[in-house]
């Protein structure tokens, strides 16, 4: 019987398997950031162990770093300690690190692909749930806990039970103005936040193949939001074109050998998935969340749902609580919801393509006077590229704040936070209570919806904006 893509990649990495025990998997790339690594390094020190493969390990600072005044010492002592600790650990154990101020610094899931380190057929882990992002290249990539970080540092392997496989096939074509983010938000609302539990998911079908690498990363990024262990997409010409020429991409004969192997990384025709879901992209529209988990979403053209309409008792209670927290009335058209802050950034939508898309909509327009637009590039390279293209000027002229690279308001570990009761439209991936700041209210949206919302001050799509006058 044939094998699925994820089974092929998994099999290639089994160091040891024994009846009744989890597989011992080799890890090709271990990414590290300041929040989840300190105790792992301390564990190594206590046991007198070293890092087995510093050459397969990469560290950066992203969660805590300020996006303003990044050339000054970090003001918050806890953040500063975590960042300093990572620097010391990287130096002590000989790990390549891209600290604040370095040209390659950025959100860990943005810099892997950007450096060309993320390649098809790899196993990639990081002490961070959105490691699933790297699956866009046909890699098995997932988040791990601090004890596992220590395990990978010491052994370059992980003990893992083989997950089940699922296929999500997306047929048709996404309508104009509907993005990968709308696609994945639609999927999560349809399947629920636990729909992917226990599975490695392969996204496939014409609508997925038509996505750019950035779009594919957005989809795989949010695999974790519907509970999947990992999400991946078979590598194709789009993938190879994205990787070719990047700093750590194979070169010359190595490139040819790599591509030859990568081309074999597809699901065999006779392979069987444990579970399959089929969606139609052509019926999708801009999608936004109204609640406090990513599965509580609705079409932008829809209304805030009435909890009484939910058949399942848990869903009903969940919806009631969410609406209370979000201060929303059932029946209110989503387009009438006023937003205080718009956040464009994060590992979901903080890449150059996202900033171009936002700038395209913002250009020649101004941000609503009661709304704040925060644009945070996912990495220093993205920031520099955007500035080369003049995108920063477009944002600033429209009245937006143009910031340094990092996770920023995605989770508010740095000073970029919502104040209690403040409402945001955010291109990030989590709308949990307090995620963007204590008492903050988050609506997850796509980049075009974020940009249009910043202009109108209420949840909007670009189609709602008046046409620009010819000058």
């Amino acid at each position, binding site marked *: 019987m044939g094998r699925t893509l994820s089974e092929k990649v998994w099999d290639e990495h089994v160091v040891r398997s024994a009846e009744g025990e989890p597989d011992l998997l080799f890890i090709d790339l271990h990414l590290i950031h300041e929040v989840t690594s300190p105790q792992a390094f301390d564990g190594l020190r206590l046991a007198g162990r070293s890092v087995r493969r510093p050459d397969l390990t990469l560290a950066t600072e992203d969660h805590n770093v300020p996006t303003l005044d990044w050339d000054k010492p970090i003001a918050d002592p806890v953040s500063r*300690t975590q960042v300093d600790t990572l620097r010391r650990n990287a130096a002590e154990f000989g790990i390549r690190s891209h600290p604040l101020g370095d040209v390659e610094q950025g959100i860990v899931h943005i810099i892997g692909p950007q450096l060309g380190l993320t*390649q098809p057929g790899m196993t990639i882990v990081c002490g961070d749930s959105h490691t699933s992002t790297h699956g866009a290249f046909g890699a098995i990539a997932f988040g791990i806990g601090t004890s596992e970080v220590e395990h990978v540092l010491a052994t370059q*392997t992980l003990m893992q039970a083989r997950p089940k496989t699922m296929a999500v096939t997306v047929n048709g074509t996404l309508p104009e103005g509907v993005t990968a983010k709308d696609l994945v938000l639609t999927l999560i609302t349809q399947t629920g936040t636990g729909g992917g539990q226990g599975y490695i998911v392969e996204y496939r079908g014409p609508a997925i193949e038509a996505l750019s690498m950035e779009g594919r990363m957005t989809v795989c990024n949010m695999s974790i939001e519907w509970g999947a262990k990992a999400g991946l997409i078979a590598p194709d010409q789009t993938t190879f074109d994205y990787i070719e020429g990047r700093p750590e*991409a194979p070169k010359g004969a190595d490139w040819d*050998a790599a591509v030859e192997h990568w081309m074999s990384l597809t699901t065999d025709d006779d392979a069987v998935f444990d579970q399959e879901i089929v969606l139609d992209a052509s019926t999708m529209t801009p999608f936004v969340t109204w609640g406090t988990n990513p599965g509580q979403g609705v079409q932008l053209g829809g209304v805030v749902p009435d909890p009484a309409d939910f058949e399942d008792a848990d869903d009903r209670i969940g919806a009631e609580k969410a609406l209370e927290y979000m201060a929303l009335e059932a029946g209110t058209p989503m387009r009438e919801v006023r937003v205080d802050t718009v956040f464009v950034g994060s590992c979901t939508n903080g890449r150059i393509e996202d900033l171009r898309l936002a700038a395209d909509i913002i250009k020649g327009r101004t941000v609503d006077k009661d709304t704040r637009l925060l644009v945070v590039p996912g990495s220093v390279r993205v920031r520099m590229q955007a500035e080369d293209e003049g995108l920063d000027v477009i944002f600033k002229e429209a009245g937006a704040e143009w910031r340094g690279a990092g996770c920023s308001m995605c989770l508010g570990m740095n000073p970029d936070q919502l104040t209690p009761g403040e409402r945001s439209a955010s291109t990030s991936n989590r709308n949990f209570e307090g995620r963007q700041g204590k008492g903050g209210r988050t609506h997850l949206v796509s980049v075009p919806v974020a940009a249009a919302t910043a202009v109108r001050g209420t949840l909007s799509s670009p189609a709602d904006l008046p046409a620009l006058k010819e000058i």
Partner: protein
Amino acid sequence: MDKFTSHTGIGVPLRRSNVDTDQIIPAVYLKRVTRTGFEDGLFAAWRGDSSFVLNKPEYAAGSVLVAGPDFGTGSSREHAVWALQNYGFRAVISPRFADIFRGNSGKAGLVAAQVDEKVVQRLWDYLEATPGATVTVDLESRTVKAGEGPDAIEDSFDIDDYTRWRLLEGLDDVGITLSHEDDIAEFEKSRPSWKPVTIH
């Protein structure tokens, strides 16, 4: 991880059930970047109360905690186990442990010995009547012992075979994997040369 065969140390009677991980170590103590030093947060909310058992000099140097049922419920924080170990505890005896706490204990080398509720009751009575008395936790024979003579307490405890084996051998997960180091080295030899590296 150090091997654990048998340990004899001062028993601490903690007459409470449902001691959750927030009580073992409150969230505000989790900010440290090391795996050590968490003893300052151990039972932080109770340490201000002079009648709390660990504040009595006879028990202060305790290393075997005897607690009521459902010890270690709540959040999955590994810090709860670290805090107990950092303080000096080598074993916790309880009629019932929360699953994640039990798992974390096994990983870190703290013995979570599950005994009959009556045994806990007898240990409490004995340790309170004889402050500073010791309790023995023998992993080899899976028994807990305390006291002498006709009133001596001796009973068996439950711990799963795999965890017991690892603790007896002093193997943490990393240690077990490193025992397969030959397999890892063999695998590394077969990796294609074009796979990326971060350091050249």
